[in-house]
């Protein structure tokens, strides 16, 4: 393990063992084979240490600040570690000191200074309804702000399900006409990091990857990094064996719930949700939704808000009863109508009957 980065780290007191351990754990989190840990360590160690921290601009649109809050929960790397050592966070409304005019100025300065090089992070969806007036910053619509900032960006990270897929503003009936970043920007590499919010370590992990290698990680067809979104929650869930045994919690505090049985019947969306919660867990590995007894909401999947109810088991249909009653009525009516037609037909056949005589046996 040699290279500029490892030297830099060594100067900061990070031993090669620590670095190796970090890589092994990262590989495990990313569901890569153990051998990948070593390969990763070597590749990362050899990466050049940048003289200037890359510029990162974070634009908030129709959001709830949950994504920003989430990234502050990241342990390794931590947000302050990123800000002081790895990136230059030049615009981030929730954290930045400047406001109003000065904030705007900082944004424009950073965009100009780092044109073509900065990483643009977007959280929140973009409303297209009402010519964009549903969300404005500094009198400017989100659409306009996004297009302007995207122009000079090297790549865009759509942080959270709103930016990646439209999220909650896009939920039925989408009152503001919200869309995702990739619905608008077509000419830049976009990394989607969905989740409501995304897992902190996934956010910083993907940033670390991009900043270390300068490349977009391998993405799935929804634009999500495969390393973290390659497998379903269900595949990696510690409760999976209970699913296999057919042991299910029936309410939130029954015997099964206490024993950690599968939450499928309580509406868990783990089987259809690609995310890393089951392996990475939340808040420094403290717990994660399924471990804390609530089924997965499926928040890293497009349109999970309209998936039919969070407590509805995946195998359960939406609302068939009305339809069924109508169909049954129509079916019965059709049946009765045919009955009358058939009766009439049979009667007329009987009426047409002439008593058969021997003569009727011959043509």
């Amino acid at each position, binding site marked *: 393990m040699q290279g500029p980065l490892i030297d830099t780290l060594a100067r900061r007191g990070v031993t090669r063992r620590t670095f190796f351990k970090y890589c092994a754990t990262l590989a495990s989190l990313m569901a890569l084979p153990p051998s990948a840990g070593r390969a990763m360590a070597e590749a990362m160690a050899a990466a050049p240490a940048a003289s200037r921290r890359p510029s990162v601009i974070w634009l908030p649109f129709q959001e709830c600040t949950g994504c920003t809050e989430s990234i502050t929960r990241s342990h390794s790397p931590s947000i302050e570690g990123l800000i002081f050592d790895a990136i230059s966070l030049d615009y981030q409304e929730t954290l930045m000191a400047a406001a109003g005019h000065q904030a705007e100025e900082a944004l424009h300065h950073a965009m100009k200074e780092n044109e073509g090089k900065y990483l643009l992070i977007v959280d929140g969806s973009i409303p297209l309804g009402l010519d964009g007036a549903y969300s404005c910053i500094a009198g400017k619509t989100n659409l306009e702000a996004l297009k302007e900032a995207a122009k000079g960006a090297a790549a865009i990270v759509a942080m959270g399900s709103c930016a990646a897929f439209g999220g909650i503003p896009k939920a039925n009936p989408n009152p503001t006409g919200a869309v995702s970043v990739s619905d608008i920007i077509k000419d830049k590499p976009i990394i989607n990091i969905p989740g409501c919010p995304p897992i902190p370590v996934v956010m910083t992990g993907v940033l670390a990857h991009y900043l270390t290698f300068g490349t977009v990680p391998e993405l799935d067809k*929804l634009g999500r990094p495969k390393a973290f979104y390659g497998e*379903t929650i*269900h*595949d990696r869930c510690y409760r999976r064996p209970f*699913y*296999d*045994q*057919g042991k*299910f919690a029936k309410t939130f505090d029954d015997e099964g719930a206490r024993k950690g049985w599968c939450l*499928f*019947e309580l509406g868990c969306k783990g*089987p*259809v949700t690609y995310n890393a919660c089951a392996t990475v867990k939340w808040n420094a590995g403290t717990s994660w939704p399924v471990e804390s007894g609530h089924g997965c909401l*499926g928040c890293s*999947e*497009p*349109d*999970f808000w*309209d*998936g*039919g109810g969070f407590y*509805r*088991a*995946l*195998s*359960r*249909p*939406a*609302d*068939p009863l009305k*339809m*069924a009653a*109508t*169909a*049954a009525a*129509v*079916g*019965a009516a*059709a*049946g*009765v109508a*045919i*009955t009358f037609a*058939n*009766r009439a037909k*049979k009667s007329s056949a009987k009426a047409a009957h002439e008593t058969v005589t021997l003569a009727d046996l011959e043509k």
Partner: protein
Amino acid sequence: MNEMQFLTWVRGPGLDIAIGIFLLGVLWRLIEIYSLGRKVDVAPGRHRDGASGLHTVFRRSVPPPGMIKRSPVTYIGGYVFHIGLAIIVFLFEPHIILIRDLTGLSWPGLPSQVIDLVSVITLGAMLVVLADRIKNPVKRYLSTFADWFTWTLTFLPVLTGWMAVQHLLLPYTTMLALHILSVELLLIVLPFTKLFHAFTVFGSRWYLGKINGHRGVPV
């Protein structure tokens, strides 16, 4: 439409439509068939134990003497795949939840490993039955497009369900959606094809038992 939207559609509107057509079809067809009626037999009947419609409904589930030997594949294959289907449909936990949510009725299920095994056996039995339909001269002679079609529509739900659980070929979401879609197709065609025997078999056996029972012959 992405895979989650696909799944959502098949679970929601898709299933609604399928169950709707199914119910509509079943009622329509049942009325269409049984409203044709039957003349009362005025010949004085002969009474003998075991000679009745009800007896026949059950008795016909057991093969007549010597017939298993004559047609082992039809009988054993048929039993295995019918019983297998019943186990999979009614004793797989996710299916029970579905039924509970639709009807409020529920019962304990079997471990998924057992269901898994049953699925494989069922699929095997269905393949054997298909091979027999191709090979056996009588069956081949009788078979029409509808026979191959309904076999496929019965086979697909089992296959896709099994593949979804096993995570084969396609992502679980897509496979689950395909599974539900295949079930919906099955529901839709059931009332209008020979699959409707699932309903009329009881009427047919009952008529047979009653007509023959009137003459004192338990059949």
